């Protein structure tokens, strides 16, 4: 993990909030939208990028088009968007450029456009190989749709594909999860994410849960599914490198690793987050406001950003630990010292020792990482590092 503070390289995130329909578990900023809105929105994002980059030379080494479902955009809008990104930023030669796509929203033409506009990594929202479960989740695709899309992308030459999978789903049992995982791994995607379902407020699943009609998976079963996934993927040659992510060696998501390593990223579009020069920003979450501003004066991009926090040293230390521990190799003591200016034990000796004694953290010498048990209750570990006051 190296970071060169002199040379400015950033990650770029673009949020596309549109979906064909909203899934039953989803609380992300997303909704259906008509074509006219999509077009105005993409124009707005383009002008936002243009204004951000104007008179500056910013090098980007990752680009991530997320959502929502970015793949619902028409080919010409994807081209327009990627043009803006390539014009605005100077991209490194090995720049990782990801777009999230749903099986069923990608055809040959779109795949071509992905390719021609520089996208070299596709993140597919598969979630499950079980059609019953896919329906239960409110997904628009079937297992067959996914297999077709996957094959199509491979045929078009995409050699870096992620598949998102979910477990702990209502109605799912261990067998079904095992089948989904095995079938997916057998396709050998370069990257597999496996998320335990979170019941978020404001989702249909939450309403069901409140009524008590959601077939909840017990914590014990959830952990069984999780650890099975970790072991199985390991056997198949994947590296389980982050709580919910595994990749073939060298295929870890460079973009997502930035989030876990206190590196910079500039976000564009509705509700997008940025971390630039030690400040965390959030873009407006109000679509009307977002579009209105564009109509008025596209140069006002800065006004749309709310500063969430100007990170203090204490913020940096806390965030470094609780994001960094998501990586299974953990946090490097040197990196902490560089960022915070103190040895990690100067600040957190009590916390670290407590967690080590409870068997949740392990000190590996140059780095500190969660244990297997620590992963299961990582929130418990991480919140230990959020302190009211600092005594140095």
């Amino acid at each position, binding site marked *: 993990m190296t970071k060169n503070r002199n040379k400015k390289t950033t990650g770029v*995130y673009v*949020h596309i909030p549109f979906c064909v329909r909203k899934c039953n578990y989803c609380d*992300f900023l997303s909704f259906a939208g008509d074509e006219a809105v999509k077009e105005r929105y993409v124009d707005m994002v383009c002008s936002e990028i243009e204004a951000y980059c104007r008179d500056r030379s910013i090098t980007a080494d990752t680009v991530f088009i*997320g959502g929502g479902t970015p793949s619902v955009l028409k080919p010409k809008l994807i081209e327009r968007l990627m043009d803006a990104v390539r014009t605005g930023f100077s991209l490194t030669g090995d720049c990782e450029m990801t777009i999230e796509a749903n099986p069923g929203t990608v055809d040959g033409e779109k795949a071509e456009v992905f390719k021609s506009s520089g996208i070299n990594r596709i993140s597919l929202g598969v979630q499950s190989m079980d059609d019953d479960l896919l329906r239960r989740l409110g997904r628009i695709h079937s297992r067959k749709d996914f297999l077709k899309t996957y094959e199509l992308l491979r045929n078009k030459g995409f050699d870096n594909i992620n598949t998102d999978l979910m477990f702990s789903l209502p109605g799912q049992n261990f067998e079904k999860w095992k089948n989904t995982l095995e079938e997916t791994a057998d396709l050998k995607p370069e990257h597999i994410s496996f*998320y*335990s*379902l*979170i019941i978020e407020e404001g989702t249909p699943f939450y309403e069901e849960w409140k009524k008590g009609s959601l077939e909840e998976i017990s*914590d*014990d079963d*959830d*952990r069984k599914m999780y650890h099975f996934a970790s072991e199985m993927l390991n056997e198949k040659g994947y590296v389980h490198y982050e*709580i*919910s992510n595994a990749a073939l060696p060298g295929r870890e998501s460079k973009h*997502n690793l*930035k*989030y*876990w390593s206190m590196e910079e*990223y500039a*976000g564009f579009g509705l509700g*997008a*987050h*940025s*971390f630039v020069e030690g400040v*965390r920003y*959030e873009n407006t979450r109000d679509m009307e406001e977002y579009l209105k501003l564009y109509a008025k004066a596209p140069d006002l991009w800065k006004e749309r950003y709310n500063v*969430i*926090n100007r990170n203090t040293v204490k913020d940096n230390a*806390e*965030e470094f630990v*609780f*994001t960094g521990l*998501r990586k299974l190799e953990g946090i490097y003591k040197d990196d902490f010292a560089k960022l915070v200016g103190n040895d990690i034990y100067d600040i957190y000796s009590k916390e670290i020792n407590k967690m080590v004694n*409870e068997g949740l953290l392990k000190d590996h010498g140059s780095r500190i990482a969660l244990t297997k048990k620590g*992963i*299961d*209750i*990582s*929130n*418990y570990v*991480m*919140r230990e590092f*959020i302190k*009211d006051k600092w005594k140095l």
Partner: protein
Amino acid sequence: MSYRDYIRNFSIIAHIDHGKSTLADRLLEKTGLVSERDMKEQFLDNMDIERERGITIKLQTTRVVYKANDGNEYIFNLIDTPGHVDFTYEVSRSLAACEGALLIVDATQGVEAQTMANAYLASNEDLEILPVINKIDLPSADPQMAIDEIEEMLAIEAHDAPQVSAKDGINIDVLLEAIVNKIPAPEGDENAPLKALIFDSVYDNYKGVIIYTRIVDGRVKKGDMIRLMATGKVYEVTEVGILAPGPVPFKELKAGEVGYITASIKQVADARVGDTITNNDEPTSEPLPGYRQVQSMVYCGIYPAGTEKYEAVKDALEKLQVNDAAFVFEPETSQALGFGFRCGFLGLLHMEIIVERLDREFNLSIVTTSPSVIYRVTKTDGEELMIQNPSNLPNMVEIAKMEEPMVKANIMIPNEYVGAIMEICQERRGRMDHMEYISENRVVLEYIMPLNEVIYDFFDALKSKTRGYGSLDYEFIGYEQSKLVKLDVLLNKELVDAFSMIVHESKAYARGRFVCEKLKDIIPMHQFEVPIQASVGTKVIARETVRAYRKDVLAKCYGGDISRKKKLLEKQKEGKKRMRQFGSVEVPQEAFTAVLKYDEK
């Protein structure tokens, strides 16, 4: 004619929710000194908590000017009274400052327990009671029923009682004239030695204690040396004035008038409600009758929670005491909770109000222990102890006799609930003393009950079983011998003294089981199993277990939204702060009060 002929001093008394505050608002609106723009929703209630609970806790007195039909201007001193059984003594002192009382009766409800209790208090003070039928605007209003009940049950003539709607402002002018014509003007001799009643006192940061007073005889002005007869302390008057309702300085107060006095008094406990003020140089021979020192009936421990500082809690308690003479506290130590305070209250409501104010006004994180009454324990060697903290109970073998405080509970309910209420009274070891049908469908039950059972959850149960129609009033009648035991709670095999309580032998098993079940729901999962046990002596009588938790992990990251994750962790951390650590077990603060709550079964 004397100036006194144009003064009317009165209180408004009513059962809770019969519209006392709304009526007070209307009276103020229709008279001078208060403009409509000044009107808040409930003008007399100036505390947040009161507004939420819809009851008046602290008195606030207001002087207004009314121009009557006879062409004269009359001064009305409206003295507000607290509306709950916990504050009976304060009510009686406020009434003692008046010549009359407006007895508000809801035209849809008729006479209720507190209507009766308050009417008795008022007639004990020889007040002229002016019945007022309120809420005549409601479709279900039956003013004749209310009038009949007042006449039958209270023996107060009510056939020409003003029938008003405080909400809609109907017939308020009729009422104002009735006040002038029916309520007597105050008597007294302004040339006699000073004799004045303290009926309330509040603390003000700039003026010190503001004494609310009714001058019975004599006069008082700035510079006078006054003596408070119960405490014997002497002060120099720094200001006198009227209440409008904020203090407005006057040159002098004289016999028959109501107003305030400040005299650099440091805390309200020094200006006790009911005490008599006299002139130190020319004192009156006899104090006013009726003074008594308020006696705490209910005690509980208050401890700093989590990282809260002992000193911060102490400061807050001191500040509250400055303004609340009925609230007492002293330091104590708990094995489980460390350093804290044993606090005494008039009743459970009073306790809840104080606890809420600590949270709301002082932003303190505290733990309260099970409330307890004062038990009288006679040891085998003849020594007598008053025990209000279960932890101080001597070993059972050293106890010859235990007695508990008893109350006479006056319960008024619609007749269809008689069975249900008799059941909950019996469950709480009540003995029926008297039962009377006061009207066709209303019943008064008189029970002799242990105070312990009343403070626990009786009022909640009564309200719940009668859909809110039941009302309760109680008074302390003395001590009675009883078979009591100490019930302990053990978490992870360790005794947590803060949960210990003294209960009747026949209740120990049920209470033990209930507490264990409650704690099982409230104590969060830990990384290990947490056994919860209830025991009497060394015998475990109930047991539950909190399972160990297996998972607390956030699977997803939200597109670089680190702040969301941070908020979650902070929220969890905040929750943890409200926890109290017992050995290795974390117990949320609400556990201490939750084990006391009434459970609808």
